[in-house]
């Protein structure tokens, strides 16, 4: 009987692997169609529909991830047309890891958003379709292997992100969202221009083909510059970060969580994917240093700004700017034989852990806003008994952001650092270390307010509002997952190893 179990288990595994190819388009279409259905039915009439759609999306994502884990990279030629003509959907380990992150954070946001928005008196009618389409778009970005299709997805990402950021119903949120949209559209245009050049040079839009055909000439350089700059604007990488703080900190908490943990992250993912798969011919040491230098400045700048914010959500938003800097450190390191593999693993790991921790932090901040009606740090004094669970989540999330063991953030820091030290890149090692310490400064500044006693003569004017249970525990679960990733990184890294870029694997022996 046990062998029968084993057989059926084996069959299930085979079935899952076989269906993975079909799951590839489904991770895009399921949330999209759910979004349209929710709009059609009306969210008040079917409040169960969005969670159901989220669950189905997660199921498709699980099938896909399982398929990648067992059968290697998955690919689906849409319409049956071969790549240069048609569009290929392609999921390797990197994509699968990001899809897994999106599934987890997406589920959390879906569960959290209902009570939060209802409690704040905001309408869910437009939130659900926008959010579910955004989820579809995120998955689309992770699996699309076509440069122009990626442009369409980027547009969708911006257009869903801006209204989500504007949903807080005040003028600040609106103007922030508008600023976000304008800059992001400008970024899209630059990206499109670069893609046009690439098409002109290679006659193809397929990622791998373009990467194979591209030569290190002026066309490729200008295209890479345009695309990178455009994506940097969309991802709020340092000099083009100005939109992020107001947009992310004025949005409703679940939207902030999605924007910081997933949306901007997806764009950085694209930067890395393009540089590692399409532009490796251009990735010389000085180029890596340039981009890595931008990342290093972002790490310091974001942290310094985060130290000076009087409110909680801006702290977390600036932390995002700093944390993205780590992802860029991959590019100077990946060209070095000794550092390529750990840096690659570290950057991908960081993307995942940061997503979990950042979502947890924003949702915890949302709990604070929900309970207290504001997110001023001063106002946290003496109020933590009411928010102890949320503040625990916040503390755990911050621990992960600053790379303290035993959280997942530490492992990503370890990987990056060991890569830098193995390749004797002392500057990048110093950046990682200093970045962690700076993160500790702003994190513990917040935690000090959490622990501070109430000011003398403090009288409770209004009892904080009671949090719904699901809102209270969602950030904790996310933060604990970030913690769990600190116990062992092996499953994630094994998944990541499927279809690693050649620039990384070429040094393997």
């Amino acid at each position: 009987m046990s062998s029968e179990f084993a057989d059926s288990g084996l069959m299930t595994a085979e079935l899952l692997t076989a269906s993975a190819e079909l799951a590839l388009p489904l991770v895009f279409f399921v949330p999209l169609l759910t979004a349209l259905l929710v709009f059609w039915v009306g969210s008040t009439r079917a409040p169960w529909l969005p969670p159901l759609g989220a669950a189905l999306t997660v199921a498709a994502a699980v099938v896909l991830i399982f398929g990648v884990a067992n059968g290697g990279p998955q690919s689906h030629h849409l319409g049956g047309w071969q790549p240069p003509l048609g569009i290929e959907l392609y999921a390797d380990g990197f994509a699968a890891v990001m899809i897994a992150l999106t599934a987890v954070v997406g589920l959390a946001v879906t569960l959290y958003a209902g009570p939060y928005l209802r409690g704040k008196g905001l309408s869910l009618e437009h939130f659900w379709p926008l959010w579910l389409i955004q989820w579809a778009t995120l998955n689309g970005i992770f699996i699309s292997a076509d440069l122009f299709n990626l442009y369409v997805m980027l547009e969708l990402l911006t257009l869903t992100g801006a209204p989500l950021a504007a949903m807080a119903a005040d003028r600040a949120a609106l103007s922030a969202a508008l600023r976000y949209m304008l800059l992001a559209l400008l970024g899209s245009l630059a990206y499109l221009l670069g893609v046009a050049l690439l098409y002109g040079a290679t006659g193809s839009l397929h990622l791998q083909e373009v990467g194979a055909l591209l030569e290190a000439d002026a066309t490729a350089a200008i295209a890479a510059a345009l695309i990178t700059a455009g994506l940097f604007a969309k991802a709020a990488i340092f000099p083009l970060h100005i939109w992020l703080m107001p947009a992310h900190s004025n949005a409703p908490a679940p939207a902030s969580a999605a924007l910081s943990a997933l949306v901007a992250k997806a764009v950085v993912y694209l930067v890395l994917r393009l540089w590692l798969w399409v532009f490796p011919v251009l990735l010389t040491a000085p180029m890596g240093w340039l981009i890595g230098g931008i990342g290093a400045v972002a790490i310091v700048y974001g942290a310094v700004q985060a130290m000076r914010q009087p409110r909680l959500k801006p702290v977390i938003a600036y932390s995002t700017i700093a944390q993205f800097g780590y992802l860029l450190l991959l590019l100077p390191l990946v060209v070095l034989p000794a550092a390529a593999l750990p840096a690659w693993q570290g950057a991908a790991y960081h993307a995942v852990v940061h997503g979990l921790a950042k979502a947890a932090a924003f949702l915890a901040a949302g709990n604070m806003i929900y309970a207290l009606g504001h997110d001023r740090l001063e106002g946290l004094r003496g109020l933590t008994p009411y928010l102890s669970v949320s503040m625990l989540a916040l503390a755990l999330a911050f621990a992960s952001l600053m790379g303290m063991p035993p959280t997942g953030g530490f492992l990503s820091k370890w990987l990056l650092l060991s890569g830098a030290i193995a390749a004797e890149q002392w500057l990048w090692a110093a950046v990682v270390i200093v970045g962690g310490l700076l993160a500790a400064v702003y994190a513990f500044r917040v935690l000090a307010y959490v622990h501070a006693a109430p000011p003398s003569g403090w009288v409770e004017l209004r009892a904080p509002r009671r949090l719904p249970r699901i809102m209270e525990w969602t950030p904790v679960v996310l933060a604990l997952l970030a913690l769990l990733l600190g116990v062992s990184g092996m499953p994630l890294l094994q998944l990541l190893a499927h279809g690693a870029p050649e620039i990384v694997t070429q040094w393997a022996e």
Partner: protein
Amino acid sequence: MAGMEGVGMERVMGEWMATAGSVQQSLYQALPLITLIVSALTAVIIFGLRDHRRRQRTFWNLFGATIKLALVAVMVYAVVQGVVLTVSWPVLPGVTLRLSADPLALFFALLSAALWLLTTLYAIAYLENSGQRARFFGFFSLCVAATAGIALAGNLFTFFIFYEALTLATYPLVVHRGHPAALAAGRTYLRYTLGGGALLLCGVVGLYAGVGDQAFAPGGMEAVAAWAAESPRAATVVLALLLAGVAVKAALVPLHGWLPIAMVAPAPVSALLHAVAVVKAGAYGVIRIVQDVYGADLALELGVTPVLAAVAAVTILYGSLRALAQRDIKRRLAFSTVSQVSFITLGVAMGGAVGLVGGIVHLVHQGLMKITLFFCAGNYAEKLGIHRIDQLNGVGWRMPWTSVAFTIGALGMIGLPPLAGFISKWHLGLGAYQQGWYWIIGVLVCSTLLNAAYFLPVLRRIWLLPSPPGAPSERLRLRGRRLEAHPWLLWPPLITALAALFAGVLAASPISPLSWAERIVEQEYVLP
């Protein structure tokens, strides 16, 4: 089908039995991990309890502490049988998390488990009426879990993980009171420990880049020796980084600044910080790095241990001198810790079996004595509101049991035979003689004189000077009321004081810390 199912069932049962056996076996093997999980789980349960659930919290606290002590006892039994329980699993490619219950680990783990139980008793009574107790006891448990992790760490990576986790878990305890002084102390604490953590991280990563994932090996890792032969400069730098990293928590001059400031924390926290957790983690780290990673010979060859010994000597004298100048009881005790903990470092740094025995045994001795002193200081503050030394006049007659415990602790610190402190210093001196580092004997003599100079006046005030007229206690005594602290506050210091006494008096008995330390050194560092 039915028949086949029957056969299948039998097979399943058989397999299940086998599995159960192997599960039992692997559970036994996993004891180090389970020990950690017990402490962490206790913390989680306590976090989940609301603040006013006092009885439940007390139950879980004591339950967790007792279970842990029992588990450690089982592991001690195992190690006496000659079995070293080890758990390990890969965390990253080429990096494992490894918990190993070797004799030295259990020596420290047993100390922390036993003192945790006592400190918990003490803390429950001490913090009876303060706020945020759920948070306090939660982090208290986490803190001890991290200490146990440090003790049981089987390689440098694991050690680092728990070393940093300890920082995280201790911060909320330091700032527990939440007033500006506490927050400032918390900032200072973080500045030092996070900085030290960064140095240590650099060192650990450097070592992993050099030699890869290696378990602690008594007498030093072979791979490290090979690496050091190949690139001595890198090996020296890494060793210096590692030692500088742990030196922060071990409060070696000039990295000791956080320790006196952290005194704003509640007394049980101070007791924990000074006797079991943070400071000891640093000292324990010095032992592990010098003995189990590099090996004393290699460290000496690289020229690092003489420097370390010098720093430790300076710290011993400096701490004592500073202690002399303090008016506040807890601050004087804090500087005394700075001085005393460096004996461990000194013992390790000088190399040689006897000195090492002195260092290792001082890990326990200092813990017992210092925790006694802090418990007593807490009792004075709690019962009589005494914080400064000049308020101590005649206290001995008002709180006799507390004062007896304090006296034993203080005399032990001075190194009066036959108390625990004497045993440590004797071995240290002997070790120095053996190694030919005679200047250390001078340092020991100086330090003893200084110890006497800052502890004896306190004892004189407690027992010999008359209490100030009109002290509240006088009136209470006239009415025939008890003056002593609450039993839960009184028994822990008494027990630890007795333990310190017996550790010295019965040093020759086979279950004394000294014998154990000797056994560790013989088995692990001398014979192989």
